[in-house]
């Protein structure tokens, strides 16, 4: 589903990603870990088609970036720590807006479905600026799911969420993962990713330095794996 080879990204003289290789099959749930400044957000932005790679190959769902960006955008749903929502519109209006941008047919129906999925049906007519951070994040996930994307990217989605909200987010993630979508989630909080992901990759200094499946971590534990990966790099 996601294929990345020798990805390089530089901002002027500063090189952020140096020859990054990554891949994910359909249905995999990859947790991308790494210290701040390692390049996680840059990597995600490139996958999300928001940033152009300086060099390398990036393919999502078979489509190449940046040439076939429009096709990629149809296959992708992105949730970042910014909500991407309009505070002065209601939950329903926000989703309707995005539904129109994605050219979704029977938008009203689909919006209703999504609102139910994220548990915000009852607040559909309320202005988003009255929502708590947790609710906004939930609605943001709804926005990302509107067009039924095969690939989902989450960039630090737990930022600013309290315990309850995090638990709800966990639940939604579980549901979504069970639907067979390919998911990539970045987090600097190890505990969050542990239960959900099928695979753990560590990104350090612009490269993926370690990757381990769930079962392999049973013995050593996630924290040890992470520390080891960073030291070895």
């Amino acid at each position: 589903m996601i294929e990345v080879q020798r990805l390089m990204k530089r901002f002027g003289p500063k090189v952020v990603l140096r020859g990054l290789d990554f891949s994910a099959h359909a249905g995999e749930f990859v947790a991308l870990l790494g210290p701040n400044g390692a390049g996680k957000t840059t990597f995600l932005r490139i996958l999300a088609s928001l940033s152009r790679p300086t060099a390398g190959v990036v393919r999502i769902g078979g489509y190449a970036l940046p040439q076939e960006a429009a096709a990629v955008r149809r296959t992708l749903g992105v949730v970042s720590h910014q909500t991407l929502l309009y505070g002065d519109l209601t939950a329903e209006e926000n989703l309707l807006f995005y539904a129109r941008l994605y050219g979704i047919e029977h938008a009203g129906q689909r919006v209703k479905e999504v609102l139910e999925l994220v548990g915000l049906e009852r607040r559909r007519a309320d202005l988003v600026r009255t929502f708590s951070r947790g609710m906004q994040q939930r609605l943001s996930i709804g926005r990302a799911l509107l067009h039924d994307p095969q690939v989902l990217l989450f960039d630090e989605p737990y930022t600013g969420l309290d315990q309850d909200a995090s638990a709800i987010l966990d639940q939604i993630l579980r549901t979504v993962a069970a639907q067979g979508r390919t998911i990539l989630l970045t987090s600097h909080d190890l505990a969050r990713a542990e239960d959900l992901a099928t695979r753990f990759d560590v990104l350090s200094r612009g490269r993926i330095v370690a990757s381990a499946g769930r079962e392999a971590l049973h013995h050593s534990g996630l924290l040890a794996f992470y520390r080891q990966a960073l030291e070895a790099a």
Partner: protein
Amino acid sequence: MERKPLALTVLDILSALSLLIATYLALFYAPTEAVMGAVQRVFYFHVATAWVGLLGFLAAGFAGVMYLVRHDLKWDVIEGAAVEISLVFFFIAIALGSIWARPVWNTWWTWDPRLTTAAITELVYLAYFMLRQGIEEVERRARFGAVYTLVGAVSAPVTFMAIRLFRTIHPVLFGASSEVAKGEFSLAPGMRVAFFFALFAFTILFVDLFWHRIRLGRLAARVDQARLQAG
């Protein structure tokens, strides 16, 4: 690129020499104009500096397009150098224009369409530098610089036409139809030599300064890069 290329040194000498010659021609060789007197000699440098300003303007526009097409930062350096040079030389041209205007028409500013367009373009240049200053990220700074350069480049001819249109309704100088008022006078042969040589000398000066400035820009970029790698 450590050592200064020989060609550049040669060019330095050539520029200095031709400037000296041009000055001699303008101040001594060329005959004094009958009506305006000695102050008319300013004209040779006035046009020549404006010409350099125009060269810089065109170079900047070209570099802007090239950057947007190629995304190669070297075009950004070239663009910045061109804008700087054009900024300075248009300023000199405007100043010389004022010096010329005062004794001849008893006013510092004549709202001449060409000079006024140059002045507005100076404002565009200043805005350009302000824009670049407000952006940290190198790639975005270059991209925005190129975009604004193009907007400015397109607006200059339109501005010129607009001011000319405006001026036909509001002539500033009395008897504006007379030759002298428009600043026209016939060029005697001696004057022609001084005029064209001044253009030639300043063109060489332009290339010389441009080259120097681009080198400076490239070196600065390398310093930035080294600083980033060290830090």
